[in-house]
């Protein structure tokens, strides 16, 4: 019956044609969506990295101030204010970008973190609130009096705590201590982050932040005396970073985390660590020689390589669980349409943000005379 009716044949053919078109379209958008997932993950990694470098340097400024003798503190504070004043709000936006990408695109990762790392996240947030407001209050208080004492103290200690807990959270994500099957409070909400490895990563992060800040500040002052002071601080923080870095390895051994395998058994990890070490030597040479021009790039490069070395081996796994399972960025990404529109929003955003941000950094850069 159907075969004999030409109109129906026509309709059937048309439907077939349409189905082919839709199929083709789906395949095409499928390709785009696949690419979009990578776009979104790239943005996530960039945001985390930039937050680590720029926000980290900002925390570091507070940490440096904490480890500066009382007589030099006000000078450090002034240099720091001129250096990061115009850009500091923008530096912290990377955290918001990262967290928005996580909760929109990778909700399972976001909520797993939120539940099992509730306590360190809350402490880090208290730190962010305290240091952010103290930084602005101490500058914008119309009367400069004893209140400054309070703002300064809050700023310094909360910078330290925020960086520490940022590191603890980062360490916990890969430590494999997060136990999604836990039945008691301690295993579920404490031991996931309060372990040797996470805490070692925390202190390592603190020293890296201090190091980044010191390097950044060297380029922001024209006074030879201050320059020398910041160079010393950079060296001190760098030594601290090496010491804490070694402790991270020790703690990893103790907590049975295959950190050595990640870093030394993967080509990328190994190359990254070699490059980081080479740049470290070059950096010390330049510091001793007092040549400060390329320091920032070198320091940024070094920290990037360290992050790469630690995270490459288990990428795209974002969280390692105690059960041995991992939560992967690729496997837990949200629905296609969400990823697609998130990617578009990020691309559109970066077209607007990056030139504007670049100009901000350029315009308020201290010109080296």
């Amino acid at each position, binding site marked *: 019956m159907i075969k004999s009716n030409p109109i129906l044949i026509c309709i059937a053919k048309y439907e077939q044609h349409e189905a082919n078109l839709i199929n083709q379209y789906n395949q095409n958008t499928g390709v785009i969506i696949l690419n979009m997932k990578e776009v979104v993950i790239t943005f996530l990694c960039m945001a985390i990295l930039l937050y680590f470098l720029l926000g980290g340097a900002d925390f570091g400024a507070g940490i440096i101030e904490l480890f500066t003798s009382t007589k030099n503190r006000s000078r450090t504070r002034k240099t720091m204010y001129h250096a990061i*004043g*115009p*850009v500091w*709000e*923008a530096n*912290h*936006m990377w*955290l*918001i*970008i990262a*967290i*928005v*990408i996580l*909760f*929109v*695109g990778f*909700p*399972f990762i*976001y*909520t797993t*973190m*939120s*539940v099992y790392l*509730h306590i360190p*996240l*809350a402490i880090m*947030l*208290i730190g*962010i*609130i*305290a240091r*952010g*407001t103290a*930084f*602005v*209050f101490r500058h*914008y*208080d*119309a*009367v400069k009096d004893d209140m400054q004492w309070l703002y300064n103290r809050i700023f310094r200690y909360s910078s330290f705590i925020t960086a520490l807990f940022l590191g603890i959270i980062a360490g916990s994500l890969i430590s494999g201590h997060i136990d999604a099957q836990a039945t008691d*409070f301690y295993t*579920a*909400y404490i031991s996931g982050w309060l372990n040797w490895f996470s805490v070692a990563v925390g202190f390592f992060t603190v020293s890296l932040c201090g190091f980044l800040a010191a390097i950044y500040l060297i380029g922001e002052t024209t006074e030879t005396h201050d320059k020398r002071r910041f160079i010393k601080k950079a060296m001190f923080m760098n030594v601290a970073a090496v010491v804490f870095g070694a402790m991270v390895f020790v703690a990893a051994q103790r907590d049975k985390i295959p950190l050595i395998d990640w870093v030394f058994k993967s080509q990328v990890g190994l190359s990254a660590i070699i490059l980081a070490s080479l740049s470290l030597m070059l950096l010390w040479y330049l510091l001793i020689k007092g040549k400060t021009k390329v320091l920032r790039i070198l320091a940024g490069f070094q920290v990037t390589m360290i992050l790469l070395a630690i995270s490459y081996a288990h990428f795209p796994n974002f969280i390692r669980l105690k059960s041995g399972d991992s939560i992967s960025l690729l496997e837990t990404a*949200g*629905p296609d*349409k*969400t990823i697609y*529109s*998130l990617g578009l*929003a*990020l691309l*559109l*955003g970066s077209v*607007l*943000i990056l030139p*504007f*941000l670049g100009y*901000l950094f350029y*315009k*308020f850069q201290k010109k080296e005379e």
Partner: protein
Amino acid sequence: MDDFIAARSQMALSLGFHIIFSCIGMVMPFFMAVSHYKWLKTNDEMYKNLTKAWSKGVAIFFATGAVSGTMLSFELGLLWPKFMDHAGPIFGMPFSLEGTAFFIEAIALGFFLYGWNKLNKWFHWFTGMVVGVSGLASGILVVAANAWMNSPAGFDFVNGQYLNIDPIQAMFNKAWFTQALHMCLAAFTATGFAVAGVHALMILRDRNTYFHLKAFKIAAVFACIAALLQPLSGDISAKDVAKRQPAKLAAMEALYKTEKPAPLLIGGIVNEKDKSVTGAIKIPGALSFLAHGNFKAEVKGLDQIPENEHPPVAITHYAFQIMVGIGTLLLFISLTYFFTLLKKKSLIEKRWLLKLFVLAIPLGYLALEAGWVVTEVGRQPWIIYGIMRTRDAVTPMPGIAYSFYIFTAIYLSLSIIVTFLLYRQIKMVPVLYDKVESNTHLHS
């Protein structure tokens, strides 16, 4: 304290705190832009100083708003992980755009605050405008996300599964426009009246009168225009809520029984146990008209809604009364102010009008907070209206009460410090921004 109640309280506290700072952050830049523009056009130094004085306030509020906003983006997960598991991918679109808008705002603020003498003067002015426009865009986007919780869209809910997700459709849900409009006008009204009121107080005290008069005028005009438009927006919202969320409307008006025509209740004491209201003024048929545009229309009461889907009636009703009451009062102040402007009467002589503005300093924010209580408490027991209950979304972690206490202490101390800083800024006006010149002006 029950963990669920603690989580709700902490969320309410964080939002209630953040709203004030973000409103100031999104409205003040427009006041500054006007003042800045006047300086560029007239070369009157006083406008430059006014812009600078305001910008100090904005820097303080912006930073506080930014950190409390960062807090909120984490808090959604810390307190409501089961909600975010499903909702994140659906209503995330406005948040990802908001990230961009907020970022641009932060960059523009960097330019604006540190760009005096460093940038081309019109580019500098433009960056100030960018702060305002991107701030406003952020506000609208965040409200669109909240609107989705009231009016879920962009997915099919089949057997507990969230299917066919369309983030764009979710963003342009049915409530986004009415809510965003109402919120923006509220932000302008509240901030405008607060700023105008503070300057009115200084005029009354005869301190730097010219300086404060200029400031007062800019803020008051914005505030009064917004306050005049707000009832219209409120009417659109009421009709929208009547259609989408009859339970919320019934709670707002404490309408326990379906009535045709339904009276509008003003005030009154709600007894949730007896499901009755005593001592309210009743205007026959007025609720029918407000909700459906017809004095004889039927308005659905709470009796038509299953009891386990009732929002808390008393809180919603009282909050609604506070919002509308204050809105009406501000409307009258606005009309009086425009009448004075029309008659070209000197404001300094109209001390009673200035006193009214001083009275209105906290009122706009009070109405704004009350409005949020109506929206949020009126949505209960749902976190996604009709789909997911708030109770089912809460974090499994016990001991949230402690978190609530700690954050209460933090927000409380921040409020005290910010108020203190603002007080100092105002106190220092004669030293920093208006060095006695305007006073000698006035007395000579």
